[in-house]
């Protein structure tokens, strides 16, 4: 596969466009160029390579708005980057200038402090001062390309910012009190979101669109970019030596086969996101290598069968599987999955019931007296709820209700048979002692329970609510063998 720039695949059309837009002669290249393409479409990479291999050695600098978070550091970064890049490019000019500067007045020095650039207006002044220094030193006018990589990744992006930049480049390039600036500042904006561009359709912005790669291209790119890396992997080379494979062709075919397997297995999950696939390749390559032996190394199908496990799940979880196994053996004793005690778990379940069940169902669900459980008096109006309460926000409840439900659902161990004399002395229900409140406090500090007032937990005006979703509660309930589903059946459709 031949391409216009080395190492850049499938982007010939875009490179041609770049070539016609980005020129050293400032008079024929646009002030602002947009490059739009979704994640992992090779925008940054192509541009980097373009500047690297361009014969004219274009003046350029990179700025990543993502790292700068908001606009103020951003304009400071513009000032700083322009200054630094020009200084490294033309050390003679800046050195001369430094010498002169020492003699100049203080005010001028102040204007060259990048930290003082706090507003677009100051930025313009600053750039003018900087660029005018090079006006005399240079023979030909040049373009200076400032690449704003990921312009739409600001955390406080607003519609004004880009217009400020448009204006800035216009003003800088038009005039400077009769003196023509030799270095023309041009901006290249790399953005992901096409809707961002739609807002500025009336500006007629030159835009290069980077489409997504299709799967064949993806495979080729990955083979091109990763195979060397995987071949050099320490484990793989060791394994190959062990299995007496020294033929590079053979090694390469193993690697290519692996990459294809990964893409085919996970394409539905990752889409054509190269970053995600790269990560998966990183995670799984060594496990794949471990699965190799003398029987299956030359037989891709056998190898796939042996290592099938790694292609069935993405393993994008920090909880390792062997962790789970160990925990399962631990559950026999006391502590379990959530590393909170049994009592805390029941309290959490009770809190969930409080938050997601209406109080009018309480007597129906929890009362031990049969006369309260039946009839309309127990549930009020019979109409079932249209919406599953679980989909709604957790409602607030008072702590007494929590304790009452907790008392109802907490299983007490009976040491004596019921009916025996000794069993009369035992409490069949849990009474809230210090332990219960300790566990409540723990749940609160784990933020599994939330309160309306943070300062005074003891205040009776304080209301509580549960702060965990259904999935976690289900997990917790399962770990103590508590069927929480039965409480939610029959009260909604």
């Amino acid at each position, binding site marked *: 596969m031949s391409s216009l720039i080395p190492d850049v695949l499938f982007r010939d059309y875009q490179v041609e466009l770049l070539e016609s837009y980005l020129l050293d002669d400032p008079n024929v290249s646009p002030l602002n160029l947009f490059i739009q393409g979704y994640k992992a479409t090779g925008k940054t990479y192509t541009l980097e390579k373009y500047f690297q291999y361009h014969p004219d050695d274009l003046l350029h600098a990179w700025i990543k708005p993502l790292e700068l978070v908001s606009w103020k550091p951003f304009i400071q970064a513009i000032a700083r980057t322009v200054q630094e890049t020009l200084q490294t490019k033309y050390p003679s000019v800046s050195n001369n200038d430094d010498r002169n500067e020492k003699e100049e007045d203080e005010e001028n020095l102040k204007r060259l402090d990048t930290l003082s650039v706090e507003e677009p207006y100051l930025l313009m002044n600053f750039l003018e001062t900087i660029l005018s220094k090079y006006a005399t030193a240079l023979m030909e006018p040049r373009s200076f390309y400032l690449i704003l990589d990921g312009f739409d990744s600001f955390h406080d992006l607003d519609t004004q910012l880009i217009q400020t930049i448009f204006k800035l480049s216009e003003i800088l390039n038009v005039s400077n009190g009769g003196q023509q600036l030799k270095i023309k500042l041009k901006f290249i904006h790399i953005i992901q979101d096409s809707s961002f561009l739609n807002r500025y359709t009336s500006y007629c912005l030159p835009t290069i669109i980077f489409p997504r790669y299709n799967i064949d291209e993806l495979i080729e790119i990955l083979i091109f970019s990763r195979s060397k890396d995987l071949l050099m992997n320490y484990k793989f080379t060791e394994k190959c030596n062990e299995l007496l494979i020294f033929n590079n062709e053979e090694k390469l075919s193993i690697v290519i086969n692996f990459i294809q397997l990964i893409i085919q297995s996970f394409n539905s999950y990752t889409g054509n996101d190269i970053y995600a696939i790269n990560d998966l390749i990183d995670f799984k390559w060594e496990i794949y290598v471990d699965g190799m032996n003398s029987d299956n190394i030359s037989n891709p199908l056998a190898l796939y069968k042996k290592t099938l496990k790694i292609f069935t799940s993405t393993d994008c979880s920090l909880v390792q599987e062997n962790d789970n196994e160990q925990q399962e053996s631990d559950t026999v004793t006391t502590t379990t999955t959530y590393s909170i005690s049994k009592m805390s778990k029941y309290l959490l379940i009770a809190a969930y019931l409080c938050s997601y069940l209406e109080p009018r169902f309480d007597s129906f669900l929890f009362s031990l007296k049969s006369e309260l459980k039946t009839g309309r008096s127990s549930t009020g109006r019979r109409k079932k709820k249209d919406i599953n309460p679980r989909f709604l926000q957790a409602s607030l409840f008072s702590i007494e209700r929590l304790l009452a439900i907790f008392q109802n659902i907490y299983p007490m161990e009976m040491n004596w048979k019921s009916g025996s004399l000794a069993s009369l002395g035992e409490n069949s229900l849990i009474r809230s002692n210090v332990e219960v409140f300790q566990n409540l406090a723990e749940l609160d500090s784990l*933020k599994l329970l939330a309160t309306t007032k943070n300062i005074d937990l003891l205040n009776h005006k304080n209301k509580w609510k549960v702060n965990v979703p259904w999935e976690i509660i289900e997990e917790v309930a399962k770990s103590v063998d508590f069927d929480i589903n039965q409480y939610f059946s029959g009260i909604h459709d």
Partner: protein
Amino acid sequence: MSVNAFADTQKGFYTIFPKIDPKVTAQAGDTIPFVKLLNGHESATIVARRWDLYNQLHSQFHDQVDGIVENIENDLKTEISNLVFDKNTDDDTCKRSQCFNSVFLLGSDSTIKITAPPTEEDPSVLNAIIDMDKKECPNVRMMLRRAMFKLFSIGDTDKHKTTGSKEDQLKQEDKEMNEDDGSDSDVEDLGHRAVDEVSYDLSLVANFKDIFHKNLNLIFNIKELESINLSSLDSFLVLLKSTLKYPHVKITFIFNISSNLSNIEKNLKQSTIRLLKKKYSALDISSNRGFKYANRIFQSFLDTVEGKLNLSDRFIKFILTKMANNSNHNLKLLTKMLDYSLMSYFYQNPFSVFIDPINTEFLTDEHFKILRKCPTFMFFIEGLINNQAPRSEILGLLSNQDSSLEEFFVEFLVRENPINGHVKFVANILENELNIKNYNLIELYYSLLTGELDSYLERWPACEQFKRELKFEPIDTIFQELFTLDNNNGLLSQAIFPLYKSNMEDDLLLWERVLPPPHSSLAEGEEMTERETIVSSLEKLVGPITGQLFKLYREANSTINIYDFYRAFKSTMPEKEIMDFVIEYSKDDESLSRFIDTDESHLAFEKITLILFMQAIFDFDHIGLIKEYKSKNYNFVEKCVWRGI
């Protein structure tokens, strides 16, 4: 009004510290809090001995516990710094794939201080540890600024330190550097410039090498991960990802997680998780996970009493359930329970003094009376009779002729409790022979006591091969009940885990239990004055008003009409006794007499009950028994507390 007093009035709650008279405490320190046992027949020396022995054992136990707890921290610190500052990990892979080194501390309460290894080890690297808590992480911008500010100040102090100590050396180095970097002096120049005008963004990390001439090992210690907005943390991680391309930067994240990993995972982006997963380690530091430390504390307790004391199965069971209920601080809890049981044992058992066999000289007839009643001893005698032992021997033991019972008792004193030995034996096999570390010594002890060792060991199939060695005959030691720590009448559960809420309610209902009986000061036979008779007759009928009202409160519905409540309250008040009491006291108090005289008597009574009622209602409000009903409706109050919950 002073500023502090004003600030105090604005508080929602107060903490009150009781003032203790230093004289009183000094006096109390002189006397021994133990009382004479054996119906008060115990001699003062024995009480003193008992007290001394208890203190000796207590401090011995606590010395060991302190040592163990200290060790936990040291162990942890070394373990963490091994993960964080590991030199051996293959830096190449980390660099190539550009990833953070992430360490998850599970079950952490974020109090662990992470300290960097001394800088002398590798002078080319600066270890910058940056603590981040939730206040510093409201959004990405603040996080970045705070982090960079801290990084700069760490770098700055470090620089000053080195310049202070090795100024000349550094100057020389600087010169050399200048000479070396002669070709690209502008970079150097840039570095110097940046020191003066640093902006707190990622350019600081990027130019770190130029500014401080050191490689950077940046360590973020993120505290209380649960309370931090995870989406901003997510973007912060993405942000820092771009610094990984610099060869002089190494970034480590330490996440303090108090719940569990999957909980955190659900709130982060998949790509971020993949980024973290490339090089991560999870360390469970909650001291309860794994029974290592609890085992050590329990073992040290068994050692403390030199294996003489038994622990009853009831007591062990109690410890086990309570420890299971408290997952985070159960080492403290264990120590507390053992402590308390030891104290209560020494407090109430007259035989406790004989744990030190020297004290057997103090054996008295009172002791022998109890010895004879011991079930194990009676069982032993029964065995002797069944075996047709010589009559004189049995009689001698029973009547302590020629002090034969004393000798018999002393003989048993010097013996060690076999169970403790067995526990050690089993633990030794598990740990050294089978390399099993996650056993629970307390549970092991329990299963030995109840004779269910086999079922406990079933979870480790490897134990099969030692089955014969691990077979123990159940042993009954004579007089063991005298040397057993027990939780018989629920003393421990009431003292360490009080039902304070129901206790308060009980006290309100049955005030006789907590308040001194009326006129206890009156000596017998003394005549009561007229006033005293009136007061006592009232006291017999009416208790504290809050208690009186609480009785009614119990019977009320969840919303209480204030007027009805008042009517009910009034009807329970004895009119005659109260009026007698008021009239009696109005003789001394002019304003009170005016209050009665001006009104008709039944109106006066109504007013008095109303006053009492109002006081009690306000008390209820402050105790938290009632609250306003849906605000703005003053006819009703809502009940907050139900008994028995």
